[in-house]
């Protein structure tokens, strides 16, 4: 059963379906795309429910392995563990949600828009499922092009600057990673008796000398830290988010940033344990700076969307912090925080988009009192906002709490500083909410435009809401899923240290 292949390439079928459709029939094109993406989501739910996460179950499941470039020892090798399963589920869900969210907002070149999102979904799913490093790289770059087009064509006034910046930042990092991957190819062959392979499961079998691990770590860092984005490589993010259409922002924050965290977990920790320990203090320091910096910069934003974008920098800092403290709680928290951030920040961007679609304005100073015009919306938005603040009982709390728990033991200083940032987060998010929702509307003419949520908007916010509460109240469902992966990654990162 080629279940993963079907899941990854189902959007291609959608693309082939909409290609011959007349461009004027926008409704049919949108509907087809959303149905295909929805079916893909159902498929990933099927994969999720049939995933065996019992302790001692096989690491990678639904494995497929077909030779692709046998002359180079490269194969089409797919498989998922708990970590990638979780992210696959997140990706398929956010895909249909984000496309549905721009049902009305995008009216020009609808067909191309849908094609870009379908291609994007293929790339994102491929990245999480690839078990061959080369295949991973191919999907990694496939993600870049549609995102570039989405920002560049359907973006805001400074879209071209933003999209080129986005592309160049990511592309330079990726290329350095490519060189490192290929260097690893030969280094592995030299250590493993001439077997040339880029299979992720095989690459970790040998112990690379530290002098080799360090430059490779830095090259991977260039690719993954840009994606996360880790301070000081984050500068593309606010530009990209502000200019991107809502759906683009949702995918960017919800999934693309996770590619970086996923890369760190899978490759830096999995393959380069010694260098990971060597660089851990630096990574923790950068993550802490990102957490505080992102929070402080969010405080002073005038643009609603930019505020949410900078809060991403802060939240993703927690992910990196949790990864590099090398313990169960920290890593559990980091992975769960990735998932939560996808749900919550995705939802916040959707909420910003809902208002922006109505009044085409995001200046915080122009808004206010929206709760009076859009009560249902205000309720949804409040839950997502509080989740992002880290209110116990909602998703955001669990992830950040676990990361804190993991951090206070080994690096108390980082723990204290990040704790401070959580307080700042409460500040900027609550202040944002009050400025947008309460008091009175600062621009009177907007009053008529602000109609409450339409049924389809409720439809796509509901699953997010349900998951935010589910993760907040009963995180075990999700923690059990990722536990075997966490144990495995920690063993990879730890075992080598013990033998050093």
């Amino acid at each position: 059963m080629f279940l993963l292949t079907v899941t990854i390439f189902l959007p291609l079928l959608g693309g082939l379906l909409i290609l011959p459709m007349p461009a004027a029939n926008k409704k049919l094109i949108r509907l087809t795309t959303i149905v295909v993406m929805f079916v893909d989501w159902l498929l990933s739910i099927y994969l999720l429910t049939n995933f065996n996460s019992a302790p001692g179950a096989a690491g990678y499941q639904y494995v497929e392995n077909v030779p692709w470039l046998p002359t180079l020892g490269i194969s089409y090798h797919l498989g998922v563990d708990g970590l990638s399963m979780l992210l696959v589920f997140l990706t398929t869900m956010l895909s249909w949600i984000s496309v549905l969210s721009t049902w009305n907002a995008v009216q020009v070149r609808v067909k191309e828009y849908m094609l870009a999102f379908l291609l994007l979904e293929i790339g994102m799913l491929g990245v999480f499922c690839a078990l061959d490093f080369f295949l991973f790289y191919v999907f990694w770059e496939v993600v870049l092009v549609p995102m570039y087009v989405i920002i560049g064509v359907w973006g805001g006034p400074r879209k071209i600057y933003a999209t080129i910046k986005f592309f160049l930042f990511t592309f330079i990092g990726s290329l350095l990673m490519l060189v490192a991957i290929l260097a690893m190819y030969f280094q592995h062959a030299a250590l493993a008796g001439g077997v040339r392979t880029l299979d992720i499961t095989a690459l970790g079998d040998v112990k690379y000398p530290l002098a080799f691990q360090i430059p490779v770590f830095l090259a991977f860092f260039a690719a993954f830290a840009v994606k996360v984005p880790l301070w000081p490589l984050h500068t593309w993010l606010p530009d990209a988010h502000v200019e991107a259409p809502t759906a683009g922002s949702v995918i960017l924050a919800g999934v693309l940033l996770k590619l970086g965290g996923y890369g760190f977990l899978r490759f830096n920790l999995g393959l380069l344990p010694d260098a990971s320990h060597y660089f851990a203090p630096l990574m923790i320091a950068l993550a802490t700076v990102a957490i505080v910096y992102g929070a402080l910069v969010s405080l002073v934003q005038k643009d609603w969307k930019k505020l949410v974008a900078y809060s991403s920098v802060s939240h993703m800092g927690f992910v990196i912090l949790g990864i590099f403290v090398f313990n169960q709680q920290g890593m559990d928290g980091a992975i769960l925080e990735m998932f939560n951030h996808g749900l919550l920040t995705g939802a916040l961007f959707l909420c910003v988009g809902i208002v922006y679609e109505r009044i085409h304005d995001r200046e915080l100073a122009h808004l206010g009192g929206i709760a009076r015009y859009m009560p249902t919306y205000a309720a949804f938005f409040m839950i997502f906002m509080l989740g992002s603040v880290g209110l116990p009982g909602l998703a955001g709390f669990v992830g950040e709490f676990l990361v804190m728990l993991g951090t206070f033991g080994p690096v108390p200083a980082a723990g204290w500083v990040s704790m401070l940032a959580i307080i700042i987060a409460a500040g900027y998010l609550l202040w944002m909410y009050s400025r947008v929702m309460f008091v009175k509307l600062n621009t009177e003419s907007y009053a008529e435009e602000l109609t409450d949520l339409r049924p389809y908007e409720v439809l796509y916010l509901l699953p997010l809401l349900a998951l935010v509460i589910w993760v907040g109240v009963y995180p075990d469902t999700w923690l059990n899923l990722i536990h075997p992966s966490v144990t495995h990654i920690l063993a990879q990162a730890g075992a080598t240290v013990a033998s050093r």
Partner: protein
Amino acid sequence: MTSAYVAMPEIVVTVLAMLMLLFEAVLREKQKRGLTWLALLGFVVALALNLYQWGGGRFSAYNDAMVVDNFTVFFNTLFLATAILVVLMAPAYLKERALPFGEFYCLLSFAVLGMMFTAASTDLITLFVSIELMVISVYILAGLARREKRSNEACLKYFLLGAFASAILVYGMSWLYGVSGQTNLAKIAAFVQRTNLSDPLLLISIGILAVGIGFKVALVPFHAWTPDAYEGAPTPATAFMSVGPKAAAFAALLRIFVTALGPAQPDYSLLFGALAAATMTLGNLVAIQQNNIKRMLAYSSIAHSGYIMVGMAAFRNGSNDTVNGVTALMFYLFVYTFMTLGAFAIVAYVQAGQAEAETFDDYRALGRRAPLTALAMTIFMLSLTGVPPLAGFMGKVYLILATVNSGMVWLAVIIAVNSAISAYYYLRVVVVMYMNDTTERVPLYRSPFIHTMLAFSALATFFFGVFANQFMAFAQGATGL
């Protein structure tokens, strides 16, 4: 196996060239458009005959002046495919500019003939004569639009510097002859094997030959002729110049430096590495500043000479590894051919409708005016940038693999950084086509030939990437020099 049998593809092309000369003289202007079909037929037959020789072993012909082996077949495939694609892209442009069909095809055939003999030659004399046959035909092709000043300028610059380069090349060959007393490449190799590698006479001849070839493939600092020549020549001729003669010059480079001077490889690896690094970096940096697409593609072509030359730097004499510089070089040439010809064909296509359309502004909103053409251009630009899974990416991967394998990691990093720099100007084309709008409604030319050509190149660029294994194996099978 008689010599004539072995040289069948070359003979077919010769006959084709002669027929073109004849028809150009006797046919009326209108009838000459039918010559496109004749040219296609001739090149396709030659290609089929050529492919038939694949895997047939090694045959020398004409007293060991030429040889047919997998290497020759590989390069002939490349040359004939180039010729076919150029023939498909030319009619729209030639018709619009009222340029002579027969002369174009005739010169093209002669140039291809020279290229084929270049790849097949095993002797310095044959090699030089073949190169001259090729370049003289191409000089005239560059000046075909004889009423246009720019075309004249292109022709003259190309001719003067080309003649200069030929002189240097033949001078280097004479040094090599003086040192070794041989013109046969295999015998020179045997001599080099026996001799002291750091012999200054040998080093001087290596240096002079490198300069001569450097001019032909437009390596920095011998590239100065390229932008003007490429910009001024008629676009189909430019497309041909940027691929055909370059590939042939690389074939000559391999014949000289691998077959004959292979044992001296430790002497020149670093030299070619430095030339490659300078070439790709300068080519890309200057390409960023261009506003004319043809000129941008000219600098891009210089940069790609740099990438391809990396394969030469990564060549290690005596290594049997399948991941080696020569295979990487040949595979890259293979993918480079399709994506570059495709990009130039788009320029020719846009110009056929709009005579002077060469700047970025002329490509505004092409995504709306001609969606499929713009999609093809996007594929070519992304492939030239090196975005997976397209062919250009696989080519770069193979090059980087070979470079890392030969221990030159610094060069691999330079390739990577250069790809990132090049992304800027290649993507600018995509930006202009899709993200800038225009109210102009200039009609685009419709020609089944150029559409076939574009579809074929775009599909090839995609499939050579996704199914790269077969084509890598093709290059690997051809590497045994």
